[in-house]
């Protein structure tokens, strides 16, 4: 092959790439979150799990257990369990992040993103942020259906909003675990199978449904350190009144810790996906 000296337009272009700043990375992530929203608008059936599942949960638990919990009547139990079920649906909905990501990976579109001059973390952060809309839907459904059954917020709207924000923070953090799993497993189906093994101890092994004091000692030990317990206690406090700060800080600390551990591993793994 003979070398033909040519002047390239690129030769006059700067030799170094534009610097990646947090502002640029956020812009990229938000653009990709927009994509997720458009997709939900096109396929509203994607919202089925975050709309029907909470209704099934609330109905089942309030009417199945509501009469048999000592010291609480059905309405009392509704007040107790509803904030926890909200947390639960957010945690369940977060699994969709990993499934969506895994589905995307098997198509070519992530190759396109990875070959573009955008922040490495953007496709992952964008996927998680895009799922916030699902959280909003599930939280709204739980509260709406709950109030039909007689649930009442005992504090004020600002505190209730605080609870929602807290759930967002936790959902964002847990989203990274699903992103990491989504990057590792071969198919969305295996993620689902694996997901439930993680999900059940995390959600049902908490104080969402029953008070910690009613449990055997070994289970109490787990329930007390379970981040879902902290989050549901904080949510309960914010919605019904009572102590908030301790549980809320614990939930925030958990969220930060989970993000700090899983986000860098996920981004590293994502860079290596070949």
């Amino acid at each position, binding site marked *: *092959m003979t*070398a*033909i*000296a*040519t*002047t*390239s*337009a*690129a*030769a006059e*272009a700067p*030799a*170094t*790439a*534009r610097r*990646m700043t947090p502002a*640029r990375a956020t*812009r*990229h992530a938000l*653009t*990709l979150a*927009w*994509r997720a929203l*458009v*997709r939900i608008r*096109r*396929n509203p059936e994607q919202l089925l799990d975050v709309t029907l599942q909470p209704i099934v949960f609330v109905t089942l638990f309030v009417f199945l257990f509501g009469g048999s919990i000592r010291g609480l009547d059905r309405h009392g139990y509704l007040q107790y369990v509803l904030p926890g079920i909200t947390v639960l649906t957010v945690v369940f909905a977060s699994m969709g992040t990993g499934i969506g990501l895994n589905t995307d990976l098997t*198509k*070519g*579109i992530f*190759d*396109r*993103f*990875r*070959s*573009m*001059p*955008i922040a490495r973390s*953007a496709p992952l952060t964008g996927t998680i942020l895009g799922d916030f809309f699902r959280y909003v839907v599930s939280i709204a459904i739980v509260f709406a259906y709950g109030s039909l059954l007689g649930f009442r917020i005992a504090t004020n709207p600002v505190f209730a909003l605080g609870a929602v924000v807290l759930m967002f923070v936790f959902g964002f953090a847990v989203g990274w675990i699903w992103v990491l799993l989504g990057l590792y497993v071969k198919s969305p189906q295996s993620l689902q199978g694996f997901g439930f093994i993680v999900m059940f101890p995390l959600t049902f092994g908490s104080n969402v449904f029953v008070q910690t004091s009613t449990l055997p000692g070994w289970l109490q030990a787990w329930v007390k350190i379970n981040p879902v317990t902290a989050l549901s206690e904080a949510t309960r406090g914010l919605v019904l009144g009572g102590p908030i700060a301790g549980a809320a800080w614990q939930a925030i600390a958990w969220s930060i810790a989970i993000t700090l551990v899983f986000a860098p591993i996920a981004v590293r793994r994502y860079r290596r996906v*070949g």
Partner: protein
Amino acid sequence: MSFAIEAAGLVKRFGKTLAVNEVDLAVSQGKVLGLLGPNGAGKTTVVRMLATLLRPDAGHATVCGADIVRQADRVRELIGLTGQYAAVDEDLTGFENLLLIGRLLEIPKPEAKRRSQELLERFDLADAGGRSVKTYSGGMRRRLDLAASLVQRPEVLFLDEPTTGLDPRSRGEVWAMIRELVAEGTTVLLTTQYLDEADRLANEIAVVDHGRVIATGTSAELKAKIGRQTLDVRPADPADLEVVSQIIAAAAGVPPASTEEDPGLLSVAVDEPQVMPAVVARLEADQIEVTEMALRLASLDEVFMALTGYTTEDGDR
């Protein structure tokens, strides 16, 4: 800077498999290099390394002077990539797909919209721009994919099997669009398992097999490298195939071959000028009628066969 793409000693292993083994490439600005080889030859792996999707295990490469490992971010600002399967979002419309890419590139919204519309028109997708990509045909998806890699006006375009799986008409359309881009000065690295595609689009061809470049040159140079001509003979009566085959074998020294698609045509590589007259004389003597007889330069298919020992069709090993 003399080359838009330059690679030296690129190596990539997947476990124990050596997918790419010491590949050297050089593509001048505004030219098209065709990487030609069967499935599994390592073509895609080369492209993925050059497009910064994979890190090479050894060797180095530059795109417009930027190192693909140390200056990967710079490389990403210079390239466009169209993969083997259309990398577009099925749930979005054609317009939204292009807008998404434009917005990711931080092009201001009004300009990104204008650019998306312009690309849709250029790729004959203006009417379908508002429809979800799910409803697109294979050819339309591929064209949208190509359009998406052009939003940033790349200096270098990587096309990984751009027409695999397309019907002949869509292939022709994609070819025409690639030619247009090259005419505007874009450098293209194209992988293909179709010899005619490499023949028609590429200025230079690098034949890749088992992770190595086994030959490079223009299509004419590659044909000349084999240095042989091919004799084609088609007996009028298929019943004569056996005896004609023996006549050719006697004259050329090797038995002729026929292809599965065209079992009635016997072909043989010939080195000596007297083979054809000898075959003609024997056919006349035996009073065997033929409907076709021609001496021609080897096709790229035959060149490939000669270089690798097998045809592109049985490349799935």
